């Protein structure tokens, strides 16, 4: 959070508000307007990219609640996404629930599964826990693939297009509004969480777990709760994927996805809601850009075009390396520095 130089509050209420200065309000307004205009300007391709970013942002916020704020590393993201996607898809497909209700069901279900796989967090820390959550990843996917009766096994699960009051919800444009709305609500909810006691307790566990326990934070309850809340967000992302894409395949939820999400929050900024969004955008835009760039350059250098995918991948890896070597604390930190720089501009030091 910005150091509130020169801003004073006369009531606790004002002090607790998220935005204090006029420029902060203005920034919010600009972002909101941009989000409204965006779908009208974007090409279909970029619209799908934006939608993907929206969904990823929700998942990344969820993961950040667990990893960035509570300090419990999880590699089970892909599995939890799968739980969300399959639950929601099946609730609509098999039980005929309206899709918003199914999404709520998916959130609850994923939270439950997340809480279950969070139980080892009681005894395990750091990388040991990370590998235990890897078990969640593999077990969930294994179940999905082998529980043929319910999930359809390895075959893709077709999800009927969402219907609401007789109106079929489909198409990138329509989904843009739903996804962006969900992402906004998710971001707000996560921000709220961390300005209340519950969220602070999570951060306390991350910073100093023994001290947290001694001031009354029950580690069992809070760690499991963090897993549940985080998974709830992830479940929402999974459910959105299912209804937006109309097809659920387990191959969308592999370990690479878990790692990609981790990359998002690290590059974006651990323990930052805004960072999760930046990170999601960055990690999805970067390959897309590199690809576009590669294609346009590929024409000029035929030798390059042959190796294009590998070159693109190499560039992707290199950008991650350079980025982190340059700023290990992520985009959120860079943004913060830029703001500080501008705010303090004529008077550095």
């Amino acid at each position, binding site marked *: 959070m910005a*150091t*509130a130089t020169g801003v004073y509050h006369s009531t*606790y*209420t004002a002090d*607790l508000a998220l935005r204090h200065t006029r420029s902060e309000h203005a920034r919010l307004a600009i972002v909101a307007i941009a989000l409204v205009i965006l779908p009208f300007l974007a090409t279909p391709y970029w619209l799908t990219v934006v939608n993907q970013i929206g969904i990823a942002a929700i998942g990344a916020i969820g993961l950040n609640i667990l990893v960035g704020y509570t300090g419990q590393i999880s590699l089970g993201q892909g599995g939890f996404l799968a739980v969300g996607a399959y639950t929601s898809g099946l609730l609509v497909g098999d039980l005929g629930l309206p899709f918003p209700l199914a999404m709520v069901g998916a959130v609850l279900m994923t939270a439950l599964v997340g809480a279950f796989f969070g139980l080892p967090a009681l005894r395990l820390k750091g990388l040991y826990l990370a590998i235990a959550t890897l078990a969640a990843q593999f077990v969930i996917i294994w179940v999905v693939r082998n529980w043929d009766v319910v999930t359809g096994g390895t075959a893709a699960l077709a999800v009927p297009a969402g219907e609401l009051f007789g109106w079929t919800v489909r198409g990138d444009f329509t989904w843009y509004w739903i996804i962006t709305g969900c992402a906004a609500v998710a971001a707000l*909810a996560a921000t*709220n*969480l961390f*300005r*209340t*006691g*519950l*969220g*602070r*307790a999570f*951060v*306390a566990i991350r*910073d*100093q777990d*023994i*001290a*947290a*326990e*001694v*001031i*009354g*934070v*029950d*580690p069992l309850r809070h760690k499991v*709760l963090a897993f549940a*809340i985080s998974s709830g967000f992830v479940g929402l992302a999974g459910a959105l994927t299912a209804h937006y894409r109309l097809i659920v395949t387990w191959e969308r939820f592999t370990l690479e996805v878990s790692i990609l999400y981790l990359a998002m929050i690290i590059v974006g900024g651990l*323990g930052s809601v805004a960072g999760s969004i930046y990170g999601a955008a960055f990690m999805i835009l970067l390959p897309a850009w590199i690809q576009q760039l590669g294609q346009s350059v590929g024409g000029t250098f035929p030798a390059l075009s042959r190796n294009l995918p590998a070159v693109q991948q190499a560039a992707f890896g290199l950008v991650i390396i350079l980025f982190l070597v340059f700023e290990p604390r992520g985009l959120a930190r860079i943004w913060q520095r830029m703001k500080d720089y501008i705010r303090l501009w004529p008077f550095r030091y």
Partner: protein
Amino acid sequence: MPLPALRAGEVRPTDGSRAHVVSRAYQHDLNGSGLERGAVQVEVDAVHLHFGGVVAIEEVSLEVRQGDIHAIIGPNGAGKTSLLNCMSGLYRPQRGAIRLHRGDGDPVDLTTTRPSRSARLGVARSFQNIELFRHMTVLENLLLGRHVHMRHRLAASLAWFGPARRQEIEHRDLVEEVIDLLEIPALRKLPVGALAYGLQKRVELGRALCMQPAVLLLDEPMAGMNAEEKEDMARFVLDVNELAGVTTVLIEHDMGVVMDVSHQVSVLDFGRCLVTGEPDVVRSDERVIKAYLGAGSEPMGAGT
């Protein structure tokens, strides 16, 4: 005796008079004990703790009375910190009991509760090596001290408007009083990691105080400070005790502080409790001199 609370800009007396002490009045009672002054607050009963072959505490018994500053001294490795850890539930002694009296019904045995529950019962503490939440602000650290007194409902937290916000404001009120008491209003929004060592120690005391403890355990709050800084810290410890009446267990190696500040002193040596008594009695105890103070040591605290 409701006196007006200190307003911004009010000047404190600096001539060493006690005047300012009573000039502050607080809405909230920081003392979480329901007992009468002088009643037994904590009862350590034949506690025994060992780690593998290392005996840390051996049959230690002592009583801490409500309203006292009860010092625990002893050589390094005597088991002082371990005893505090037993009280706050971090260590589970193999034998013995530590009973916390609460004034309502039977005492609770602290040796069988988990740390978070001990906290709920009113045990608050600071640590030998500062254990603050480094990335949070002073305010957030103190608010975390209120954790046990808050209701944590997920839906409300996510929604913010409504009960969650009301609660934040409500508890902020008490926290502000502690901030005022410890004189750290300027630090409110600073991350604690950036604070000077002495200030961090003060914030840690504040965090414990926010819990409205029945008993406050302080593990070497003045280590690594020079005389002047020690004087400040001693003053805060005294204020907490005198103003709020909080029962305090204090581990400290500086005999000057211990003798001046405490009502009762217990001496541990090799896990055993050598003696408990008033400072003057303890200071002249042969065993204590031999085990702890050193024969050559000048009589500390003399000349007061």
